[in-house]
C-alpha cells in the first residue's frame, strides 16, 4: 500500500511538472516571434481567439502568479482555451473527438505487442538456440530499427494501395454510421488492423529480447533447478516458476515504454489519416495552433501517467516483496 501511495505521489509531482512546463514554455519564448505571430494571426482570426492566444502567451496585465493560478484552475476544470485551427471550438472538445481512437489504437497495439513479445521471449529462452531463438530476435531488432511511421507507409503502400486488402485510411468507412453492431465493429477492426500491426512489428523485438534475457538468467537459478529436480513438468517450471519472476523487468519497462509507443503511434496515425491525437497534432503544428498543441501534450501526458500508475498496481500484484514492505 505504501509503495502504491508513494508512486501516486510521484505521478502527481510529474503531472505538476508537466503542467508548469506547459505554462512557462510560451512565456519563455523570445518576445519578437510572439508579436510576429500575432501580426500574422491578426487578419485571420477573431478578436476572441486572439485574446485566448494572448492569455496562452501571458500577454495580459495580470501578474505571472495570478496567471499561473488561473491557468491551473482552468486545466483542472478541463478548460484548455480555444483552438485556432478549429475556431471557435474549445480545445477540450477538439481533443475529445480523437481521444477514443488514440487510446484504442495505442492501447491495443501495446497490449498485443507486450503479450506476443513476452510469450515469444519465453519460448526463445526455453528452446535456447532453437528456431525461435535463432531467427526472431535479430529479425525483430532489424524491423525495430525502422521508424514506425515508415513501416506504416510501406504497409499502407503494399497492403492498402497495391493489394487492396485493407482500407487506405480513417477509422471507419464513410458510408457507416457509428453504432454498436457487427458491421461497424468489423469495419473498425479492418481499418485498425494495419496501424496496429505496424506498431506491434516495430515494438515486439524489445519485449522479446528483455523477456528472453531475463528468462535465461532466471532459468539458471537455484529455485528453478530445484523445481526441475522435484520432477515438475517442464511447462510448469517454465511458466509458473520462471516466467512469473522474469516478467518483473518487462513490467517495469512497460510503463516507461508507454510514452514512447504512444509517440510512435501518433506518427502512425498521421500516415493512415487515423482521426486520433496524432492527426490533430499535425493540424495544430501546421496552423500554429498553440492552445491545441499544449492541450494534446497535457492530455497525453496525464494519460501516460495514469497508465503508469496502473502498471504499478500490476507490479504490486506480481511481486510480493512490494506488499511485504508495507
Amino acid at each position: 500500500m505504501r509503495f502504491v501511495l508513494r508512486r501516486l505521489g510521484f505521478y502527481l509531482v510529474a503531472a505538476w511538472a508537466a503542467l508548469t512546463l506547459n505554462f512557462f514554455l510560451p512565456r519563455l519564448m523570445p518576445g519578437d516571434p510572439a508579436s510576429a505571430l500575432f501580426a500574422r494571426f491578426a487578419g485571420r482570426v477573431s478578436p476572441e481567439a486572439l485574446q485566448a492566444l494572448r492569455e496562452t502567451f501571458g500577454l495580459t496585465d495580470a501578474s505571472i502568479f495570478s496567471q499561473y493560478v488561473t491557468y491551473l484552475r482552468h486545466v483542472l476544470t478541463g478548460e484548455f482555451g480555444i483552438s485556432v485551427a478549429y475556431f471557435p471550438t474549445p480545445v477540450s472538445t477538439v481533443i475529445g473527438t480523437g481521444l477514443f481512437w488514440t487510446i484504442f489504437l495505442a492501447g491495443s497495439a501495446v497490449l498485443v505487442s507486450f503479450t506476443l513479445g513476452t510469450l515469444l521471449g519465453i519460448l526463445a529462452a526455453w528452446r535456447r538456440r532453437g528456431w525461435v531463438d535463432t531467427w526472431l530476435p535479430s529479425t525483430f531488432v532489424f524491423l525495430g530499427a525502422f521508424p514506425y511511421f515508415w513501416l506504416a507507409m510501406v504497409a499502407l503502400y503494399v497492403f492498402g494501395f497495391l493489394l487492396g486488402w485493407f482500407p487506405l485510411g480513417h477509422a471507419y468507412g464513410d458510408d457507416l454510421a457509428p453504432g454498436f453492431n457487427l458491421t461497424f465493429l468489423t469495419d473498425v477492426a479492418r481499418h485498425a488492423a494495419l496501424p496496429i500491426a505496424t506498431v506491434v512489428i516495430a515494438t515486439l523485438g524489445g519485449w522479446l529480447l528483455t523477456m528472453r534475457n531475463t528468462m535465461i538468467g532466471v532459468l539458471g537459478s537455484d529455485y528453478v533447478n530445484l523445481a526441475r529436480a522435484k520432477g515438475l513438468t517442464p511447462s510448469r517450471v517454465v511458466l509458473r516458476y520462471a516466467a512469473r519472476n522474469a516478467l518483473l523487468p518487462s513490467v517495469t519497462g512497460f510503463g516507461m515504454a508507454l510514452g514512447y509507443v504512444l509517440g510512435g503511434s501518433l506518427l502512425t496515425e498521421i500516415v493512415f489519416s487515423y482521426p486520433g491525437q496524432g492527426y490533430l497534432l499535425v493540424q495544430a503544428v501546421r496552423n500554429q495552433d498553440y492552445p491545441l498543441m499544449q492541450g494534446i501534450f497535457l492530455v497525453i501526458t496525464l494519460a501516460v501517467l495514469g497508465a503508469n500508475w496502473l502498471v504499478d498496481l500490476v507490479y504490486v500484484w506480481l511481486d510480493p516483496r512490494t506488499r511485504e514492505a508495507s
Partner: protein
Amino acid sequence: MSSTPSTAVTGFAAWWQAIRRDRKATIGAIILAVFLLVAGVGPWLVGDPDALVGIPLQPPSTSHWLGTTGQGQDVLAQLVAGTRVSLAIGFGVGLTVVLVGALVGVTAGYLGGRVDALLSLLFNVFLVIPGLPLAIVIAAYLPSGPLTLGFVLVVTGWAWNARVVRAQTLAQRKRDFVAAAVVAGESSFRIVTREILPTMTSLLLAQVIGSTVYAIGAQVGLEFLGLGDVSTITWGTNLYWAQNDSALLTGAWWTFAPTGLCVALVGFGLTMLNSGFDEITNPRLQLERAWRAHLRLRGEEPTRSTPVVMDVG
C-alpha cells in the same frame, strides 16, 4: 583465435581488434563506415539536390537511379545530401545526450543525499513524460532549424542515461579504490573524473551508440511532422515532402522507401556494433563463449550449462 580478452593492446587498437573478432560488430562497423563515407564525400558526387532535373514522380531509371520527387528533384541526390545532415545531428545529439546524462547521473550518485533526491526526481519525471509530445511543444515555440531540433532531442533524451549512470556510480562508490582515493585526500572532482568515470567507458560508449540511434529516429519523426526546417534537406524532411506530395496514394514508393531503409540500416548497424561491444566487454558473455568453444573442441554439443568449471579443463 584466443578466447581470453586482450589486455596487451589498449585503446584504439584493442577496440579495432575486438570489432574484427566479433561478427556482429564487424557487420555493424562496415554498415556504419559506408554511411560515413557517403555522408563525407557523397554530396560532391551526386550533384545539386535542389535542382529540378526532370518530370516530377518519375520511377527509377538509368538517368535517375532512384527516380524523381514530387517536385522533380533527384531522389538519390536528396538522399545523399540528407545523409550528411541527419548523421551529423544524430551523432552530435547522441554525444551531447550522454554528456548531460553522465554529468547529472554522476553528480547525483556521487554526492547523494538531497542533491541525489532532487536530481533523481528530475530525471524520473523526464522519463515518465512522453517524449514526442513534449518535443513537439518545445520545438513549435522555437525557430525551426538543426539547433532547435538538437536542443529538443537532448531535452527529451538525457534522462535515461542519467538514471543508468547514477546507478553505476552508486555501485562504484562503495568499492575500495574509491574509498582509498577519498582517504588519500583526492578532490571529489578528481575522484569522479579520474576514478569513477573511467570504469564506465564501455557503458558510456554503448550509451553514445544507443542515444545516436534514438536521436536519428526521433529527428526523422519530428521532421516528418514538419517541425524541422522544411527547406533543408534531411532524411526527415524528405519523408515529410513524400507524405505531403501524397507519394503513397500515387504509388511513388521510390520517394519514401530508400530513406526509411537508410534510417533502419544505420540504426541496425549501430545496434549490431553495440551488441558486439557488449559481448566484448561483458565478462559473463565472454565466459560463456569461451566455455562453448571449449566444449566444441572436445567434440561435445554446447548446451545450457554454467561455465563454473572453466579452469579444470
